[in-house]
């Protein structure tokens, strides 16, 4: 065990897997000599050389297209897109090629790779450095989508993602890259994909969240406890495949659910979760499911703290739901 932040834990996972599996390569803008704009790939270039840690031109479509080609030839690429906001030039490669290769080749070409990309706001990044487009990838059949909330999970989930036969979108919440610190087990371990975690048990209201908003949810839950509302907080960890069983078990216990995410409300992943809750736990509901999310606007630079579903916006939703 050693204390690490998210950046260090992800770096640890990459280093470990590159040592263990020579097929693993890293590529992206400034991931080599510079070690990545957030320092996630720091030291990898020195240890593994420019054959396995590749600085690429500024071309997201090219990065992902090349990575897909490597994967088809048997490598295990872990490309980085510098900000999730920049991923859209590669969206066609991801949606039309990556997500479908295994299916359309009858399993012959699994296109096994992991796209790492920092996600989310709260870093004074403005509208091109703060978005949370996870739902747009969850909606694409053939992809798995992960979003860790802490260093230990980040390392274990990344190792599991690299070893997974399917392409995985690995969203790293950059707001907590350095703020989220914790003990990270030494050496090799995985956190299984598709398994959520009840971070805080409670009996009155269920919060479903992930990534950076986990901490805001915990803060709100703490404040709600002071007002007599006992909140259970679930960290999804893997968004797709969704661990709906854990969510439903909790909602059946509490009868009330609040989904918290940074992305805009309409057609955000919260909509899918609420819909599944209605389908699977309808007769247990004591109150309408609620979403506390970003707004249906571009991510605002000056109004960042109003846009994000921070604790001061989650708490009233918890109390209203509990007292409905």
């Amino acid at each position, binding site marked *: 065990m050693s204390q690490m932040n998210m950046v260090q834990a992800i770096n640890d996972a990459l280093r470990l897997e590159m040592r263990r599996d020579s097929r693993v390569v890293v590529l992206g803008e400034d991931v080599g000599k510079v070690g990545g704009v957030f320092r996630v790939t720091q030291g990898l270039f020195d240890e593994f050389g420019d054959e396995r840690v590749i600085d690429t031109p500024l071309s997201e479509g090219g990065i992902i297209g090349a990575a897909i080609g490597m994967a088809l030839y048997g490598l295990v690429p872990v490309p980085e897109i510098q900000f999730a906001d920049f991923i859209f030039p590669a969206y066609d490669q991801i949606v039309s090629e990556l997500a479908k290769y295994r299916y359309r080749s009858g399993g012959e070409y699994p296109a096994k790779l992991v796209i790492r990309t920092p996600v989310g706001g709260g870093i004074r990044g403005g509208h091109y450095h703060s978005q949370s487009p996870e739902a747009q990838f969850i909606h694409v059949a053939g992809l798995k989508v992960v979003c860790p909330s802490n260093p230990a999970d980040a390392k274990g989930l990344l190792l599991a993602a690299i070893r997974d036969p399917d392409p995985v979108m690995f969203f790293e919440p950059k707001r907590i890259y350095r703020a989220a610190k914790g003990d990270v087990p030494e050496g090799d371990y995985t956190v299984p994909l598709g398994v959520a975690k009840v971070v805080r048990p409670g009996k009155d209201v269920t919060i479903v969240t992930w990534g950076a908003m986990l901490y805001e949810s915990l803060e709100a839950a703490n404040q709600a406890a002071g007002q007599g509302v006992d909140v259970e907080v679930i960290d999804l960890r893997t968004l797709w495949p969704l661990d709906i069983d854990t969510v439903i078990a909790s909602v059946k216990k509490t*009868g009330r659910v609040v989904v918290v995410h940074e992305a805009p409300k309409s057609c955000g992943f919260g909509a899918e979760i609420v819909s599944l809750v209605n389908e699977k736990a*309808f*007769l*247990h*509901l*004591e*109150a309408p499911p609620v979403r506390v999310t970003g707004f249906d606007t571009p991510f605002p630079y000056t109004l960042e703290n109003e846009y994000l579903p921070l604790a001061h916006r989650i708490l009233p939703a918890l109390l209203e739901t509990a007292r*409905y």
Partner: protein
Amino acid sequence: MSTYEFKLPDIGEGVSEGEIVKWLVAPGDTVTEDQPIVEVMTDKATVTITAPKAGKVLETRAPEGGVVPVHSVLVVFEIGGGASPKAPAPAAAAAPAAPAAKNEPAATAVGDIRETLPGMSLMPTAVASAPAQSNGQASKQSYFNEKPLATPATRALARQLGVDLRAVPPTGSNGRVTKDDVRSLVTDGGAAPKPPVIEHVAPVEVAAPLALPPVTPRPAQKLGLPPPPAAVAALEERIPLRGMRKRIFEGMTRSKHTAAHFTFVEECDVSALKALRARLRPAAEKAGVKLTFLPFFVKAVVAALKRHPTLNAAFDEATQEIVVRRYYDIGIASATEAGLIVPVVRGADRKSILDVARDIQRLGEETKVGKVRPEDLGGSTFTITSLGQQGGLFATPILNFPEVAILGIHQMKQKPVVRDGQIVIGDVMLLSLSFDHRIIDGHIGAAFAYEIIGYLQDPDRLFLEMA
């Protein structure tokens, strides 16, 4: 602009509460003065209440099926001025000034202190629960709301406990039925926890006892239909017992469970009556009245009642007294779409045939369009039910509680009759008279029937009875 609380008016003598049958407006609707807003049913009639003033409906204070005491607030209106007033903005006021202005009291001399404001109903335990509580047990039993509000979890509980949510008075916020409401109904014994079954009782033959054994009242067990087979479940429709049907249901049950009905049927030759009516009709028409047979029946009944006053009686169960009435308010049973009602010709003994005809014409028109007035309903001393063209050969009318007699009139038909030893074609009508045998002995009832028949066969005699 201000709000106006409209209270359920005193809509009829002795009426203490009304059941909301149907709202014709919803909060947010704009209404004109005298626009129908709600149908309210009392024990006497269903009346349509109109808006007292033009304005906007802010709140309706009772759900459909809810029972509202007279003089309690029914609707809250916003009256005077359409759009919400805006205080004159100070020159070049900044944008944030606008919301602040809303919260300030309007600048009038006395201040605009309101009884209610939009959104007040959102407070838990506010209006929705108050009327239900004030009505106490009585309203709890009669509560019915076609579309109850409840969360899915409450609905699941109600299903599990076999409680009909529609019959649960809500105490939750926004008029919602809570889980506690559902449970309390079960503990109150208001709902059977298990699906009820029909009890089959084998017939038992017993020898007639010399002395009557003491009557043991049957336990008030409610029998429900067994759940239908799945294949036909969708083919069944369940119509809640409410509104006028409920009143009729209760009235008929009470009558049949109290009075000892016996029905006397006799034939009546109406040839003379037909001729008389034909002769008088043009004169009546000149007076603007359509002369039917019914006014003659009313007058014949009144004349017969005067000779047999106990037929115009009622039984007071509380004091165990027979109340003989020396006034003659004759009920005319009338079919309407909503059900049977009985408008009344008041003081029929003091009215001419023409007056009675005029009354009946007006009552008929008002009944037809559902506008019968509360003062025209209830309190009759004797009832006539005209069975019309499909009245059958004869019938056994049920007494209009607490009256002790009712006259059923059947269709006039041409039939062979024997007159002076000859078979001739006669105009014949059957009368079906039901009596309460506890109070009216058989020969009295028969004598009364023949008294009526006498007047109808020789209607000129009615002139002798003219007041």
